[in-house]
């Protein structure tokens, strides 16, 4: 066999190795400048009860999860079941929804159809809170610690792997 003829194969194998590693990486996993910084303040009405408000400081003293969602968002459906299951587990942290650029009736209908994992959902129709949190795609999920500092950010849907390998260990550590 002519050695030279093996070159194309060798180049391809090297390329394949890179592609295999690349599969494990996420090009959208851009390090967020907000990690390690205090969560931006907000005060907004609740999706379900327009007369009640929730603000950031109400959550002080506990570890919590902020999940940005919308009824128009296809990828939110993917993670939704997982969040519902998580919220029902014993020892789960409160999940607060940020209903982003949505309409009240649609958001509520979506929750009643697919289940509601949120202790409360904050209504953000014009995306102002989302802007403060640097949201550039829905869904996104933040983990915020007792002192109100953002410790983790998930861009795109929460996958079972991300929940098991990253989020739950981090929550355990923050609680400990």
């Amino acid at each position, binding site marked *: *066999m*002519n050695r030279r*003829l*093996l070159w*194309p*194969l060798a180049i*391809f*194998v090297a*390329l*394949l190795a*890179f*592609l*295999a*590693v*690349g*599969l494990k*990486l*996420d*090009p*959208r996993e*851009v390090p967020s400048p907000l990690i390690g910084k205090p969560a931006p303040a907000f005060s907004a009405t609740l999706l379900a009860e327009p007369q009640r408000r929730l603000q950031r400081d109400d959550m002080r003293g506990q570890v919590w999860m902020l999940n940005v969602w919308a009824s*128009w968002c*296809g*990828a939110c459906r993917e993670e939704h079941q997982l969040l519902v299951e998580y919220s029902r587990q014993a020892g789960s942290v409160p999940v607060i929804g940020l209903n982003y*650029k949505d309409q009240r009736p649609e958001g509520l209908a979506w929750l009643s159809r697919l289940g509601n994992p949120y202790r409360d959902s904050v209504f953000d129709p014009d995306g102002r809170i989302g802007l403060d949190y640097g949201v550039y795609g829905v869904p996104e999920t933040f983990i915020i610690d007792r002192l109100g500092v953002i410790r983790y950010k998930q861009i795109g849907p929460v996958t079972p792997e991300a929940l098991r390998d990253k989020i739950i260990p981090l929550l355990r550590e923050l609680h400990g």
Partner: protein
Amino acid sequence: MIPEFGHFLLILALGVALTQGGLCLLGAHRRRGEWMALARPMTVLRFVLTATAFGCLVASFVRHDFSVLYVASNSNSALPLHYRIAGTWGGHEGSLLLWVLMLDIWSLAVARFSRTPPPDFIARVLAVMALVGAGFLLFMLLTSNPFERLLPAAPDGRDLNPLLQDPGMVTHPPMLYMGYVGFSVAYAFAVAALLGGNLDATWARWVRPWTTAAWVFLTFGIGLGSWWAYNELGWGGWWFWDPVENASFMPWLVGTALIHSLAVTEKRGAFKGWTVLLAIVAFSLSLLGTFLVRSGVLSSVHAFATDPRRGLFILGFLALVIGASLMLYAVRAARVGLGQRFALFSRESLLLVNNMLLAAACGAVLLGTLYPLFLDALGLGKISVGPPYFDNVFAPLMAPLLLLIGVGTLTKWKGDQLGTVIARLRWAAPAAIAAAVATGLAAGRLGMATTGGLALAYWILITAGMDLAGQLRARGRASWSERLSRVSRAWAGMALAHLGVAAFAFGVAMVKTYETERDVKMGPNDTTEIAGYEFRMLKLAPVSGPNYQAMQAEIEVSRAGRVLATLRPEKRVYRVQTNPMTEAAVDSNPLRDLYVSMGEQLDDGAWVVRVQYKPFIVWIWGGCLLMMAGGALAASDRRYRSRATREAVVPADGVPA
């Protein structure tokens, strides 16, 4: 029931494809005539199964069956019928089905029209294509079933991505896929030749029309995509070096190289091993493109929903298909021989340089596309390689290529004298430069890069004219029209495609140098001026379409007091997906485009409007059309039909539609 029936047909198609692949390869190996004879009927069966399954998916879309997950994700009850049909390939699952359907159409065409090659060869070709199809069917059934049910059914669908709701986008993917998948024919012929161990000029003659046909479709698909991006993305650009654009451009570059090296293999029996390698690489790059789009390893405006299982499956499939064929190449290529010798200066050697330049260009695009991935994989951080890299690398590789078109077509096969060729061309070079300078002066500004680009365009034009004159002179004393009719279609096609390159280069040089743009704040009755054209906003009013609401501006364009056109750009918001879309308005003629698009609304109710003047931009797509027409003409040359006409089963052009 329709979705279940479609699902069932896909499973059947997978069974047929696997059986055909195994049986025909084994049959060809053991010389079992009755096994090999199954190749054609089984190909027809595969086509019927996939086409019916595709029909089932179309039916689900047309009938608004929102109990099918894929339909619910990509359609809506307000979506017009033509977009519902196009929605069939508007998402990941359906476009895979389209991919398989295209593959079966090409297989069917090979089974029907390739009558000359011996039965064992055809059996191998069709078996390889069947196995490729089996891989995709398996992928679909395991990870991306378009017929998956959604229970309970959604009350309404999430609508087709608004970006895709455009006539250009309806035709862009099928054409692109016809091109991508069309290279599977050349690939299958190459693998069959390696397996059979014989490869000669006849082989090249068999595979050439198929390769050219695939290239024509790919050219059309890419051109259409570029035209669509220009009209639909609202930036006025025509090429963005987006990873997914690059994924379609790489097979095109290698396919172009393949067309040229096949010419050498057919005419002179040379470049055999290289041609086979190019055929494998062209299709491998098509598969790689599929991987890049589906796996989400690169971020892109085209990104489909990403799912790690999908990426893993395609990666395994890539490893199998490409790895096995490159292994086969390493083991068997030496047996097919290296071919005829040729002189250092000859058309062969110039075509070799052409191939090297095209391969280098493809390598540069591949590197630029995957560089972010490489760095990320090595833990060196996240970066993105933008247009500056590509522009800087690409132009220096393309300029000599364009120069070679003129030299190569006027150089003899086998061997030529450098001095004679230079003497032949001595007037062409100064004439091209003079014409370029004159054009630049007429347009008002001279620049190095512009003059270079324009000179290359004129150079191709002049040398093509000289070549035509030579062709006519060689055809003796008959009348001009008779001599013209004797010029072969292959030559005419080549010349036409090269003129297409010239038109393309001309358009690019003109647009890059003389385009102007301006972002202005405009409300009703505001005016702005650009390149001597006056734009006046007449009114601003909301309009509504079947599934969107829009703000539409009416802008009157005039020059020297004479009204030329009224443009109506829109900013649309689609009801379901609620993301804003810019619908640009363009007044186009061969000399210039006037392009108006709406940006953001300001607090006082006025809008930021971008007006652009783009001279000669349609020449870019006109050039693509000329290249396509040239390819189609060359593929229909008589010598590919000679045997077929005797069998009287092939339509006159000998190329599948």
